[in-house]
């Protein structure tokens, strides 16, 4: 049950984008088309789960024992950057189908602060390995949900007579605000809150 709660908290109640403000750049940047939003979401799910697990091992079994905790910022970002590089090369050679679907999004993921943020949060919350796994799955699914919803909504906004000053990013922010407002309904869900 507690793992389920953890998942629910990561997925809905504390949605990473709308409630925690992580990963905003792709949320606003890659949400103008539905198919790219889905592709980006899939890539984030993949990379986030993988990187969370790797950084967890790195922290627990290398940085902690060697007393190098102060290096975690540099170590994590380098691990994630090289992981993304590695995946890109690997997909290109081994799974070209997946590469053509996700490949273009991979380089963008390095700068997605949600990936690094979740790696940090797993350490800060003292998650076990299984909790790390569940949490990163929940967060990345929550990210994908928000991104896909935003992409759907933006298709309608793009064809609406939005006032000039609000066109583009401002109205996207307003949309995000109202989305976050709707997500507030899950506050206190099973005792979970911000």
């Amino acid at each position, binding site marked *: 049950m507690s793992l389920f709660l953890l998942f629910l908290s990561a997925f809905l109640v504390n949605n990473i984008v709308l409630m925690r403000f992580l990963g905003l750049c792709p949320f606003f940047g890659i949400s103008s088309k*539905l198919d790219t939003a889905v592709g980006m979401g899939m890539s984030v799910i993949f990379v986030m789960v993988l990187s969370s697990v790797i950084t967890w091992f790195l922290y627990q079994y290398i940085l902690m024992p060697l007393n190098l905790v102060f290096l975690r910022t540099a170590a994590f970002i380098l691990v994630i950057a090289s992981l993304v590089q590695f995946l890109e090369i690997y997909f290109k050679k081994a799974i070209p189908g997946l590469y053509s679907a996700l490949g273009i999004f991979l380089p963008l993921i390095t700068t997605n602060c949600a990936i690094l943020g979740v790696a940090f949060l797993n350490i800060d919350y003292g998650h076990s390995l299984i909790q790390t796994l569940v949490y990163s799955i929940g967060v990345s699914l929550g990210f994908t949900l928000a991104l*896909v*919803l935003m992409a*759907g*909504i933006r*298709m*309608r*906004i793009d064809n*609406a*007579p*939005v*006032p000039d000053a*609000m066109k583009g990013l401002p*109205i996207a922010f*307003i*949309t995000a*605000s*109202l*989305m976050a*407002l*709707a*997500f*507030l*309904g*899950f*506050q*206190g*869900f*099973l*005792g979970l*809150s911000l």
Partner: protein
Amino acid sequence: MYISSSPHIRKDWNVKKIMYGVVIALMPAFIGSIYFFGWRAAYLTFLSVVTAVLTEYLFQKITKRKITAFDGSAIITGILLAFNIPVKSPWWLPVVGSFFAILVAKQFFGGLGYNIFNPALAGRAFVMASWPQIMTGRWSAPLHGSISGIDGITSATPLNLLKLHATDPAVLSRINSPEMLKNLFIGNVGGCIGETSALLLLIGAIFLFVMRYADWRISVGYIGTVFVVAWIFYLTGLTPAGPLFHILSGGVFLGGLFMATDMVTSPVTPAGRWIFGIAGGLICMLIRVWGGYPEGVSYSILFMNMFVPLLDRVRPKYLGEVKK
């Protein structure tokens, strides 16, 4: 001589007729609210409507758009917002809520027809987030009844009773009693201004369905799901209240009949409408039973509003469509 493309005859209705039709459909509940809660209910509704129309008018004036503030849609938003706040709210609450609803949730998106979220619900969620102590703590009894709908228990609305006092045997024994259900159906209980009377809301909604100003699928899907899920939860012991209590209490009728059916913010395909209604009802029950708030109607609809553009993408098959 006029030249125009076919067809050359048009059905005898228009946007204004629909909008004012909805306003008329809300009147029984409005008159009921005055009977139940006194003139302050009318006063707050009036403030809300005036703010809504004025905000829309001024925005359109300033941005040099066509003035459509009097097409009735702003009036609906104003009424629905007022219907969703307690009668003891300070006067500025409906004003701020209405202003937010029209400006942020409607006009910024391009005005009527383009808003993604139901403006009244967005306005309500805004005041709920800002002043929860008013929205959930200031209930008053109807002039001719008690807050909870059960004589002798006057502490909270029926839904609060369920959330906070569900372990009290005195409450439990009477929560599904015919007396309770009768009061809920008629509306003689505490609650937001326009949500208490299922009967009066239903009268208005039947008018809407007959005139085809609202889609019955969403309402049946929404209220039906609340009923079925509440029944299952009741039988499995997750909630002490029966399905009738759940659909009649709180805002299920107001939300399911008038807010989920808002044309602009609901799907356009029959299948999409079923999904919209059913998923909304489910979320409402989840929030009621496990959520932090006693009521989940407005959040459930607001949440489903986000899915509408995606539901619209599920295109029905056209006649003779060939699979490729």
